[in-house]
């Protein structure tokens, strides 16, 4: 070699030798230029090759397989065996652990409200696309029996507390304290979990909030709004963290000069509590509610050293804001806001750069005092991402990670032995390598495994977030799909929402597995036994939809849910939109009612009328289809106006029927249609010994019509039952015939001949029965009698009309005792058990309104919705509630109809030419 380049060559050679020597020498890792060459981990040769040869020449795929990355392709398949193996290896409880099958009932979506369910289903679709998975929480064991079997699983205190909330047997909130890193700081993941838990179990308030937001920009979460700029903020993640002062809340907000203020929106909170530090210096905090001074507390310590302390303030009802003004030398840690009512309070503390070691920096006494004071039912630990990062930088070791997490879990368990704890594994992340390739960040799985073991040993439950996300390599798929930020570590909002969705459902499944149903009856959602019970109706609807000029009649009988007309109006509108509108159908004779306004029907009565109803009368007697009758003295008149304010122009031919009673000694009725008197009808055949139903029919043209019935002077009283309007055009006629407070027994007790005659005149193809809610409220209901009478009623009416039938089960009926506690209506379980049997025996389809509402304690959730869906009586629904239930009914009915059509299609085609 030429001498001239020798000097440079020697420099290079010595540099390489020195770098290799230092890397292999027994030096602390920070002094090794190439730490991956450590002697204690495998042989040197392959490591050197890996160091020198590019990845593409080593046969390693730096990126995930193309099928996982191609934007238009489905996500990589994840064999079931793989996920099962993960669960089995860590779940001693066998069937409890494992991977829930995707998109099947039981993944935890059951009792979400419609809007939340809609967004949850979108996230489910996203989960499918991304290859993310439903992974069950590994419950582990927090308390073992003497024989080694598990007495209490790791989540038991939490699921038990949720059960108490569900049963309304708890007067205090269920608190969750969720500690974590930057994934928690943005609050997106926890927001999803919080909102859904609060929707299911009620809200106990906003929970723990910082004095001021930790970052000037970004999402304003979980903090007050500082009215001054002089707060000094010190965090456990800072290089100079606040030593020996801060607990799990992680951040100290201190003042030492001019007074500093902050403000909170109360959002219905009735109790506020300040978390602060007492210290040997003068300081005070003045509370103000809606600007008016309230309590003032001194923060000076009685003890010689600083201690975590708390000050509670009861807030007046309706208060809007709470302000704090700290003067002197103070250190505040945060404020909790709670409603004081039972419900979920979900505290989140997320520190950017948070890890187990960071939370261990908290003063142990303050950590314990603050956590005990909070009385959480569950503590969630969501760290690990930064541990994995530091491992990849060799700034920490697996042993250190294990030690620190073990210490944190122990500290949490020691501080709140009665609380459950849940450890989450870190999520998957990516890095760009020295050669610019995107690869999976190492160590996430290792840290996750350590956390799994630490959780098991510490008696905590464990959730494998990494597996739920889709396993190692999923971060790169998430990046491609725009669910991960370009930093390859932090999920974007949609990604966070998906993680929150998966965690929430995992919690929900864990709760469902441990929760004994309050009503121990199978109450399945959806339309049951539609095939073959509704075959004729569906066939006729299909012919109608195929263009045949058919009328399809549906008559719904029931109690107040039907009498309210909101449900039936919504169902009628939906069906008419698809199959055509053939008229309003039957309206019972009665007083003016705003419930009919939405259907453009107006009733009016003048003169001496008495409206009688069947449930307050002795058995027997002629009643209208709704179980009422209007008895008018001479001189009285009533009118029923159909289609008020309907647009002119469309003038279909139609038929207006008037239902009345011929009885001995009764006066002849004078009828006008649209103001025109109609000829008097021939008197009833003589001799008339018993009342009979007379149905008179008048041809009409146009949409809107008014029928007026008058009882002439000088005669006897007369009874009117109702009127019906139909158009001679193809479509649906949906009759609503409800009597508030009625039961199946009420209907059964009415004169059968008269009722069946009227019902047959309505020419129904389908009879819908919605009794049961009132039966559920009866103490000591005779279920056998209900079964017998209801079956007989339905069978009889079916014979009289030739119609098919569908029975709707009761809504979720609750009652409130003197202490304010809600419990199930006394006979709800009996009704829920009996009605499906009635449907089966009478050959009817069955649809559970309670299951459609969300099942167990759905009424409470419907009451809590905004706007409310359930009324405070625990029985009835609001207008929005009935409309939402009707939408669910139509959806299930039409799904069954479409499924029937789909099934019939191949047969039809096969039979064709």
């Amino acid at each position, binding site marked *: *070699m*030429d001498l*001239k*380049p020798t*000097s*440079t*060559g*020697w*420099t*290079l050679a*010595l*540099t*390489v*030798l*020195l*770098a290799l020597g*230092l890397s292999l020498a027994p030096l602390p890792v*920070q*002094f090794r*230029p*190439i730490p991956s060459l450590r002697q204690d981990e495998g042989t040197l040769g392959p490591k050197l090759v890996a*160091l*020198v*040869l*590019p990845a*593409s*020449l080593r046969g390693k795929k730096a990126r995930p397989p193309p099928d996982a990355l191609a934007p238009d392709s489905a996500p990589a398949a994840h064999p079931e065996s793989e996920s099962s193996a993960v669960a089995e290896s860590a779940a001693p409880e066998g069937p409890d652990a494992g991977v829930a099958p995707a998109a099947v009932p039981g993944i935890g979506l059951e009792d979400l409200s419609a809007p939340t369910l809609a967004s949850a289903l979108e996230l489910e679709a996203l989960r499918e696309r991304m290859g993310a998975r439903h992974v069950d929480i590994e419950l582990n064991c927090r308390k073992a029996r003497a024989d080694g079997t598990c007495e209490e699983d790791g989540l038991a205190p939490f699921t038990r507390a949720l059960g108490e909330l569900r049963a309304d047997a708890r007067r205090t909130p269920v608190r969750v304290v969720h500690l974590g890193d930057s994934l928690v700081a943005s609050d997106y993941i926890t927001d999803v979990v919080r909102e859904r838990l609060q929707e299911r179990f009620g809200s106990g308030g906003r929970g723990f909030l910082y004095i001021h937001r*930790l*970052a*000037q*920009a*970004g*999402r304003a979460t979980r903090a007050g709004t500082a009215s001054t700029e002089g707060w000094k903020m010190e965090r456990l993640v800072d290089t100079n963290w606040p030593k020996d002062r801060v607990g799990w809340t992680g951040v100290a907000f201190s003042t030492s000069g001019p007074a500093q203020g902050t403000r909170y929106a109360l959002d219905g909170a009735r109790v506020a509590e300040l978390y602060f530090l007492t210290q040997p210096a003068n300081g005070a905090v003045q509370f103000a509610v809606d600007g008016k001074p309230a309590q003032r507390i001194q923060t000076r310590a009685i003890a010689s050293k600083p201690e975590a302390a708390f000050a509670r303030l009861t807030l007046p009802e309706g208060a809007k804001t709470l302000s704090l003004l700290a003067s002197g030398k103070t250190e505040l840690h945060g404020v909790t806001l709670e409603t004081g009512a039972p419900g979920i309070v979900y505290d989140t503390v997320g520190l950017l750069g948070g890890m187990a070691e960071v939370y261990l920096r908290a003063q142990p006494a303050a950590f314990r005092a603050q956590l005990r004071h909070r009385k959480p039912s569950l503590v969630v630990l969501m760290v690990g991402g930064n541990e994995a*990062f530091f491992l*990849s*930088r060799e700034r920490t070791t697996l042993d250190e990670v294990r030690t620190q997490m073990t210490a944190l879990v122990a500290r949490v368990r020691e501080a709140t032995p009665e609380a459950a704890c849940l450890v989450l594994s870190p999520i998957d992340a990516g*890095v*760009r*390598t*020295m*050669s*610019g390739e995107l690869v999976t960040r190492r160590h996430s799985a290792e840290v996750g495994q350590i956390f799994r073991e630490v959780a098991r040993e510490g008696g905590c439950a464990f959730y494998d977030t990494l597996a739920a996300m889709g396993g190692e390599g999923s971060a790169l798929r998430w990046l491609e799909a725009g669910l991960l*930020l*370009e*930093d*390859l570590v932090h999920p*974007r909002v949609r990604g966070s929402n998906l993680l929150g969705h998966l965690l929430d459902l995992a919690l929900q499944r864990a709760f469902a597995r441990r929760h004994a149903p309050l009503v121990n009856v199978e109450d399945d959602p959806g339309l049951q036994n539609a095939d073959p019970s509704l075959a004729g109706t569906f066939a006729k609807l299909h012919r109608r939809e195929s263009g045949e000029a058919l009328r399809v009649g549906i008559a719904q009988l029931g109690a107040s849910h039907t009498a309210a007309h909101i449900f039936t109006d919504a169902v009628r509108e939906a069906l008419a939109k698809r199959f055509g509108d053939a008229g309003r159908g039957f309206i019972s004779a009665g007083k003016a009612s705003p419930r009919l306004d939405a259907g453009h029907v107006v009733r009016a009565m003048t003169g001496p009328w008495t409206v009688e109803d069947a449930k307050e009368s002795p058995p027997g007697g002629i009643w209208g289809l709704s179980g009422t009758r209007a008895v008018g003295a001479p001189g009285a008149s009533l009118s029923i106006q159909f289609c008020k304010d309907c647009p002119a122009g469309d003038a279909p031919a139609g038929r207006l029927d008037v239902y009345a009673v011929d009885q001995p000694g009764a006066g002849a009725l004078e009828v006008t249609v649209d103001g025109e008197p109609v000829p008097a009808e021939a008197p009833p055949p003589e001799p008339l010994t018993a009342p009979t139903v007379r149905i008179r029919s008048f041809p009409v043209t146009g949409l809107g019509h008014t029928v007026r019935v008058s009882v002439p002077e000088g005669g006897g009283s007369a009874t009117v039952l109702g009127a019906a309007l139909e158009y001679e055009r193809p479509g649906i006629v949906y009759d609503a015939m409800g009597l508030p407070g009625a039961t199946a027994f009420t209907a059964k007790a009415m004169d059968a001949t008269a009722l069946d005659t009227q019902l047959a005149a309505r020419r129904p193809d389908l009879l819908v029965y919605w009794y049961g809610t009132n039966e559920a409220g009866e103490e000591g209901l005779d279920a056998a009698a209900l079964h017998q009478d209801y079956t007989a009623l339905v069978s009889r009416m079916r014979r009289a009309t030739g119609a098919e039938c569908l029975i709707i089960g009761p809504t979720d009926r609750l009652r409130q005792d003197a202490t304010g506690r809600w419990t199930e209506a006394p006979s709800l379980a009996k009704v829920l058990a009996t009605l499906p049997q009635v449907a089966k025996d009478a050959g009817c389809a069955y649809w559970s309104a309670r299951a459609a509402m969300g099942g167990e304690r759905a009424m409470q959730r419907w009451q809590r919705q905004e706007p409310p869906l359930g009324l405070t009586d625990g029985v009835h629904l609001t207008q929005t509630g009935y409309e939402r239930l009707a939408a669910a009914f139509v959806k299930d009915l039409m799904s069954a109809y479409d499924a029937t059509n789909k099934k019939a299609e191949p047969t039809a085609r096969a039979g064709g030419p």
Partner: protein
Amino acid sequence: MLSHSLQYLAFVIAVFAAYWAVHRHYAARMFVLLAASVYFYAVFTPFPLLIFLAGVTVDHLLVKGMARTDSPGTRKLFVVLSIVSNLGLLAGFKYLELLRKTAVSLLAPWHIDVRAEPFHLLLPVGLSFYVFQAISYTVDVYRGKASAEHSFFEHLLYMLFFPRVVSGPIVRASELMAHFREEPTLSPDDGARALFRVAVGLVKKLIIADVLGSGIVDPVFGSPHAYSSAECAVAAVAYTLELYYDFSGYSDIAMGVAALFGFRFPENFARPYLAKNLFEFWNRWHMSLSSWLRDYLYIPLGGNRRSKPRVCFNLMMVMVLGGLWHGADWRFAVWGGVHGVALCAVRCWWWFRGKTSEPGPVRVALGMLATFTLVVLTRVVFRAPDMTHAAEFYARMLAGVPGLANVAPLVWGMIAVAVAAHALPLKLYELSAELFVRMPVPVRAVALVLLGLGIRHLSTMETRPYVYLQF
């Protein structure tokens, strides 16, 4: 295998040893360099090597054709064929998709169908640099500024020479190919300076650029709405610095490695953010590209020697095309266009008010500030993935949201280092280089290992590819 990776350093050491072992033999040293260059490129992706091989073959035949004919028309035809074939490569692999998308959006109102599916063409790494360098050679031969007597393998090595093949600098034939036949030399001082240059490049890239990139630029540009206006402004400044330290760091490594083999590349940067006006900025920024655009586009268009409107047109044309050279996206044309408008404005100012030969310190400061501000603001378009994103970034930056909580102390520190390193007198750099050169070999090795340790501790884990690799 990026040039700041350990694999690359190992590769360079191996090639260095082989090259100097045979450097006295022309064929052997050519073989070493050519084989190393082919290997280096093939590690990225081998397929484009066939394209380059075909391109060099065509160009070589045309160059030989020019050498064998005296007919000006034929020579012109050959050079035009060379330009067309090279630009055809660029258009086909780089701009076809852009043209398709543009045609789809422009012709949609007239219901004219254009292919809806993307072409999915692979953009060969370094194609833009390859094409410009190829054109420079054939045009130089046509102009008589470069020799046509080089062999095919010399031509091929000139185009594929590994220190510069992926991201330049664009080297003229006179600066590289002309020296292939000379027996190389490397004095101890030159070798030490080359190593120093590589080390400086690594520091620029791995410490300053990558820390700024991953510390603030990526997160803020990724979701500007999550940051305050001040943080967006800091991110824009940080990106401006990142881009300089990234590309000049790469250039330093390329020049240092080339120098280890006895080749001297022209400088690519001359502290551009100290420019007092935009013309000076472009004379200091990516100088190999700027001078190419000047020599092969601006001057052929007429340069400054035409009417004033034509000069402005020429400036606009050069800047818009120069912008588009960076990427197949109209935002690069917008970025170049804005610079073109600004250059025209400066030119007009000089025409109407006269150019001050020796401006005072206040004027210098104002000029530097205005130039830097314009560069920072236009960098947003350069960095953002699309114009919508850029608009969102500008909107956020101007929203007046205060706060700098998300700017980490390390980022502040690195911005300070970046500014200081940019502004410090060149003499300090030269003194440092001299100190390194004068070190005994073992001390120099210790210094390099310490530097490596420092880089290991200060750099980010998420080592990022060079920004200009995408161009």
